[in-house]
């Protein structure tokens, strides 16, 4: 086992008595790409923090190159060649690319003064090494997400690491950018650097890794060569049970009904042009496209957040002006935003308030809230959507990701929405809750006759849940697929062909 770089042995880490890691062992060999799979809250990030020296394990040990340590400090971890690229990249938006790249090195060399020429040289070399074209004098705030990630990778490589830990690196990237990143990751591997790829995205893990470990509830439940796994086995290990996936069928009623949502000639300068779409009650229409294709802008426009648009939007045949969020809501449009935590929820406020946020105006006389009515509505919503909580007084931040998403859905059901727009409905939701949320959305579409528009990067998610998928590119709807006669592969191929 001379090729083992890092070995976690029987690590236990408790937080106020609760075991976040329970007897976790993980072996990373030199020059391998290793995936650590697990749902949110399974202990993935605790493993990272033990490896990078942020947390000190309560028992167990960490062996590096065969030498055993009871714990590492952050400095020791870096000195042993362990580098972490966090989800937020830990870059300084107000500083230039060059300085971001050079800061680590300058600090490690215990420099007191800054030599700007050497900063530029260091940065130039780091960027060249990665083979990317980024202006080192640019401020990081001006870069795209993918650009920032490349800077973060370039920075990590500057210290000649032995192990690069990447925490959910693909979350904010488009498919195209993910492929670029994978190419770079393989290139890094070719230099003998190990990579620990922490993720919950099945297909990416299967694609990139050589070996795979699955963590669930703080315990390692599976480990082995990636070729031993497929999606369903990973899901079973991650969740502890099987999850069936059926596709969604929608049958047009015998007597034709008018569409719930009808868009014609919708245009927003610089974002999208001349869009037309009809969605009938009970339909779930997927909207797919690369980041920057205009899909999010369409959703925002339908929700009254882009008042500059032209064209008509009809709901049940009635044209509605969408110049403000309030008019969109009054017209029966509901929007579940992309980032649940920063755009969807009031984390420290109670579940009740989160559910009722949008309809307070409607249950108030002269602005005075009808409290019994509010309590009843909240309680019945919690019941209807099976939100797991003893009471609605609890802060919503204490709920799991899946339950939080239900709270957001509950809010919109109370508005008696007719059109539900979902932007990345299961981003950051663990696999178990994901299936549950899909079921809820499908049921709602059927029971309430909602017209659902679902935007997602996860094409499988669309194929499984939509009866139609519209592909968007450069601000236009370029193709429509009936899900019944298409496959994930066809849509993926189409998206890859763009650009």
């Amino acid at each position, binding site marked *: 086992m001379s090729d083992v770089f890092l070995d976690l042995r029987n690590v236990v880490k408790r937080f106020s008595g609760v075991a976040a890691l329970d007897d976790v062992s993980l072996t990373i060999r030199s020059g391998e790409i290793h995936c650590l799979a697990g749902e949110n809250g399974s202990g993935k990030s605790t493993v990272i923090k033990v490896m990078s020296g942020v947390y000190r394990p309560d028992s167990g040990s960490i062996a590096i190159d065969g030498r055993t340590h009871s714990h590492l400090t952050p400095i020791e971890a870096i000195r042993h060649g362990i580098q972490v690229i966090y989800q937020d990249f830990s870059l300084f938006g107000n500083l230039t690319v060059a300085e971001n790249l050079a800061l680590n090195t300058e600090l490690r060399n215990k420099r007191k003064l800054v030599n700007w020429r050497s900063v530029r040289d260091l940065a130039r070399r780091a960027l060249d090494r990665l083979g990317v074209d980024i202006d080192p004098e640019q401020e990081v705030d001006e870069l795209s997400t993918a650009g920032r990630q490349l800077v973060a990778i370039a920075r990590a490589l500057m210290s000649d690491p032995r192990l690069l830990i990447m925490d959910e690196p693909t979350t904010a990237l488009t498919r195209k950018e993910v492929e670029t990143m994978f190419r770079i990751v393989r290139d890094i591997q070719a230099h003998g650097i190990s990579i620990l790829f922490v993720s919950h995205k099945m297909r990416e893990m299967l694609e990139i890794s050589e070996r795979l470990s699955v963590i669930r509830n703080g315990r390692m439940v599976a480990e082995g060569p990636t070729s031993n796994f497929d999606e369903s086995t990973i899901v079973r290990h991650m969740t502890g049970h099987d999850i069936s996936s059926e596709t969604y069928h929608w049958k047009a009623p015998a007597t034709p009904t008018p569409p719930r949502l009808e868009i014609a000639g919708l245009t927003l300068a610089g974002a999208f042009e001349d869009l037309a779409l009809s969605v009938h009650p009970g339909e779930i229409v997927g909207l797919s496209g690369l980041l920057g294709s205009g899909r999010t802008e369409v959703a925002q426009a339908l929700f009254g*957040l882009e008042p500059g648009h032209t064209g008509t939007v009809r709901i049940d045949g009635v044209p509605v002006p969408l110049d403000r969020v309030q008019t969109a809501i009054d017209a029966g449009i509901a929007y579940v935003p992309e980032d649940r935590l*920063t*755009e969807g929820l*009031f984390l*420290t406020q109670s579940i009740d308030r989160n559910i009722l*946020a949008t309809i*307070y105006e409607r249950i108030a006389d002269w602005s005075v*809230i009808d409290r019994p009515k509010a309590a009843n509505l909240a309680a019945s919503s919690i019941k209807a959507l099976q939100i797991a909580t003893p009471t609605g007084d609890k802060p919503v931040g204490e709920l799991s990701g899946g339950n939080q998403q239900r709270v957001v859905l509950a809010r919109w059901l109370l508005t008696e929405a007719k059109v539900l727009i979902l932007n990345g409905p299961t981003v950051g939701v663990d696999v178990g809750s994901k299936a549950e949320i899909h079921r809820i959305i499908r049921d709602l579409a059927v029971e309430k006759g909602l017209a659902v528009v679902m935007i997602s990067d996860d094409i499988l998610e669309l194929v499984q849940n939509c009866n139609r998928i519209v592909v968007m590119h450069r601000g236009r709807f370029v193709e429509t697929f009936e899900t019944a006669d298409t496959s994930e592969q066809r849509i993926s191929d189409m998206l890859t062909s763009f650009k």
Partner: protein
Amino acid sequence: MGKHAFDVRSLINRDNNIVQLLGMVVVIMVVMTFLSPDKFLRYYNFESLTYLFPELGVLSIAMLVAMLTGGIDLSIIGIANVSAILAGLFFHHFVGREGIASGDGTGIVFLGIVLSLTIGAAAGAFNGFLITKLRVTPILATLGSGQVFTGIALVLTGGPAIVGFPVAWDWIGNGKIFGLAVPFVLFIVIALGMAFLLTRTTFGVSLQLIGTNPKAAVYAGLDKTRMIFLSYVATGMLASIAGIMLSGRTNAAKSDYGTSYLLQAVLIAVLGGTNPAGGKGTVAGVSIAVIALMLLSSGFQILRFSNHLIDFIWGAFLLLVIVINAYKNRNR
């Protein structure tokens, strides 16, 4: 009765900060009584407090309203002074100094109050405009507007205080009603009203939600711009009420009256459990905090500490609160 008891318990559960504050009031009372038994516990002492603390209490509630959305209002003192001064000028113009001295002008006081409140609302609307429409950070917007308001007050008076207000105006600051100090009764009414406004109305709940997560508020369809704008209008009106109380009590208005109240209002709001980052804070907490600190001040005054030393103690208290809050959060 049973229902009532339940309400109290739920209030305490929801906010153990209030229990803590009440505990603090008790501790201050006990210590001060121990240090100066004959003077501190006198009825006169408490009665004089009921004339003094309401101004600061109203200003602190104003600060709470601004902080609920994660803002701050550094212009409240300027607003208070400018509205009192304008009322004073109004009286002088329409009744005249001699008229006021001879007791005239009682009827016109109502108009003066309307005028003051309008000035407060307008000043608050100016802040709200800067913050919501021009998107200036609240701290800078109110820093600048506070200078402008104080400056206008200075220009209007030319420096010296405006002396001589109608008798009815003085009554607001010095009078008695049902055996209680008028400012005190006024404070109770305002506190109850604001508590109702902030917890039972769409306006108040919206402010708390906006303060917790402004972005999510937009996506939830709350009219963020309008609500924040209105919150500064409310802050401005509360400040002008404080101005009326202050000028009523002292029978004078000046551009630099009550400048030390600014720090104290921030301190009391924070001490009362308001989160300066927004989303959290109660009128009850702020009200108890102002009473606690006024008791503390009056105790030290009885012990013959100078006013400057009391400033020192207020500052020390603010830092102490920070330390206590930090430890409280750590245990959580």
